[in-house]
């Protein structure tokens, strides 16, 4: 029971990380119509930015700022240099150009930091474990990620429904040309939204840093899972991204934790472990296939 609760929390923690990425991806797609494969690279840039500042200064707060700044600035620069030219293009061109960006960023990171994974320590303030239920201890850092993720989700919700920027975002997603015709500087809006998406990706990356190893290729691994989230939730829908991320995060974590054990009842230990690991990595894709069979547009399709 303790284990189940612990894994459930781990799942939620993975879920909010995925949400931060999926929200940015889906916002960028919803408003600019661009599919950005390099979103995973921004996650990686955020993690490396934070790692760099953390090793130089030792302060987690500065590291967090550094990671956010690195991701947001990188995002705005690639929007200005590359992505801006892709708005009018078809998805194929967007995929390939951003694929080129991934190759570039991965090698740039190798050149700057080498291939060795970097490990960042958990800040002392957030280290240790806390009793979440009688007898159940859970790491503070992971709880903090959940809290930050949910706070960001709420802030994003408020921003989209209650601010001028949010109004433009909604308007842009429904009818791009009309927004432009009404005199809104669409270029600034695009760069802002892209920067916001990059910021969220960077936040996810820098928070994941102390849990996972910061390494080249970390972005693509999570990017593909993020795609699954977006497809399950419904492309272009932030609400869908939130629920999709939680569903994927929890089911993936639970399958990884318990499937090998269940299989071990049926076959030998090592084979069960290997097969369990394989099946649980495949699980979310099967989930996606089932969702597609029932609701091709995702669980929470965006309006219009």
């Amino acid at each position: 029971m303790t284990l189940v609760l612990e894994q459930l929390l781990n799942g939620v923690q993975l879920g909010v990380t995925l949400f931060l990425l999926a929200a940015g991806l889906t916002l960028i797609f919803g408003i600019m119509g661009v599919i950005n494969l390099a979103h995973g690279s921004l996650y990686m840039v955020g993690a490396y930015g934070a790692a760099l500042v953390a090793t130089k200064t030792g302060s987690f707060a500065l590291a967090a700022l550094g990671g956010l700044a690195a991701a947001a600035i990188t995002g705005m620069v690639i929007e200005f240099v590359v992505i801006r030219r892709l708005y009018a293009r078809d998805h194929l061109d967007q995929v390939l150009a951003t694929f080129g960006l991934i190759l570039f960023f991965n090698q740039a990171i190798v050149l700057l930091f080498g291939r060795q994974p970097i490990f960042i320590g958990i800040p002392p303030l957030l280290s240790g474990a806390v009793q979440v239920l009688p007898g159940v201890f859970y790491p503070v850092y992971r709880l903090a990620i959940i809290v930050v993720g949910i706070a960001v989700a709420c802030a994003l919700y408020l921003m989209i429904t209650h601010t001028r920027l949010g109004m433009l975002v909604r308007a842009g997603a429904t009818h791009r040309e009309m927004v432009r015709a009404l005199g809104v500087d669409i270029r600034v809006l695009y760069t802002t939204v892209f920067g916001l998406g990059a910021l969220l990706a960077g936040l996810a990356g820098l928070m994941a840093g102390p849990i996972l190893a910061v390494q080249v290729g970390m972005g693509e691994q999570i990017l593909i899972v993020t795609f699954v989230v977006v497809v399950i939730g419904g492309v272009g829908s932030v609400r869908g991204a939130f629920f999709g991320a939680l569903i994927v995060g929890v089911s993936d974590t639970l399958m990884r934790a318990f499937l090998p054990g269940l299989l071990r009842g049926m076959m030998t230990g090592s084979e069960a472990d290997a097969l369990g690991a394989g099946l649980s990595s495949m699980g979310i894709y099967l989930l996606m296939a089932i969702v597609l069979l029932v609701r091709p547009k995702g669980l929470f399709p965006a309006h219009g």
Partner: protein
Amino acid sequence: MVETTMVETRMADQSIAETFASPKTGVSQRDVVRFCLMLIVLAALVALPFAARALDAANLTTLATRIVIFAIAAASLNLALGVGGMVSFGHAAFFGIGGYVVGILYQHFVSDEPLFGFISGTNQLIITAAAAILVSGLAAALFGALSLRTSGVQFIMITLAFAQMLFFLFVSLKAYGGDDGLIVRRRNVLFGLDTRDDATFYFICLAVAVAFFALLHRIMRSRFGLVLGGIRQNERRMASIGIPTYSYQLAAFVISGMGCGLAGALMANFARFVSPDMLHWMQSGELMIMVILGGAGTLFGPALGAALWIILETSLAAWTEHWQFVLGPVIILIILFFRGGLQGILTMIRGIAHG
């Protein structure tokens, strides 16, 4: 009821064929030029291993073999992507399946234990290649049937995710090497040919490629190919004149997957090694780039693209370990400024030459 729809479909097909195909009476001068050009290229490709031996550059033959194999894979992807407009980001899955069919059958051939208890292993290229085509076709039918329920950006993401799923499946198959991959100690045998000789193997691949491109030529010129092109241009219009677009797209997707499976089977034999890397999403991306680089939707564009890409990759990799640092921006520049690919540039040059 079913009969009437079929008749209607057939009639619709004919009308489209008439609309799209320019009436071809006799052989035009351009066709003759094109045919001669093809013969010259083919002659050069046949002469290549002999030239390589004379120049004492044996790795030229292996480089050419890789190009030929990837030309098959890229051309198959092109049928889905360039002709049918289905942007599949997961075709490496079929490439990898083809490779694994060869690897797994070989392993069972060596260990002499039947697969699933009744399929005995083999090292006959004819059988392994056919099995590779069959299995990758089945996988393409399954993935395609699900993926084609969506379109646009979802389709891209879903094909990518399915390929990734298979990637994890093969990583977890410890019996077949898992992460480390599977070594095929000796190439499959084909009749009495010495497949261990690189030049002989090159000729086998070249022969397969020629047959495959002839088939693709037939497909692209056929009514089926024209309908497919029509669906790419305007799916709704095609549907409204009574064409079951889903079935057409699925059929093209399956054929495309089979071609990639065939290429994968050849690759496994050529490299004598298969690993989950063959199904990696980077591989899918590279196949797409080959298609775009050469010119999507054309018959020989993907082959040109494959050649250019592999030569570029090989020479950059020889120059620096961080070749992707250069290649990434090169891809971006190509996408941003040379949309039609090589074929587009060639057409442009021809246009200028003809005034």
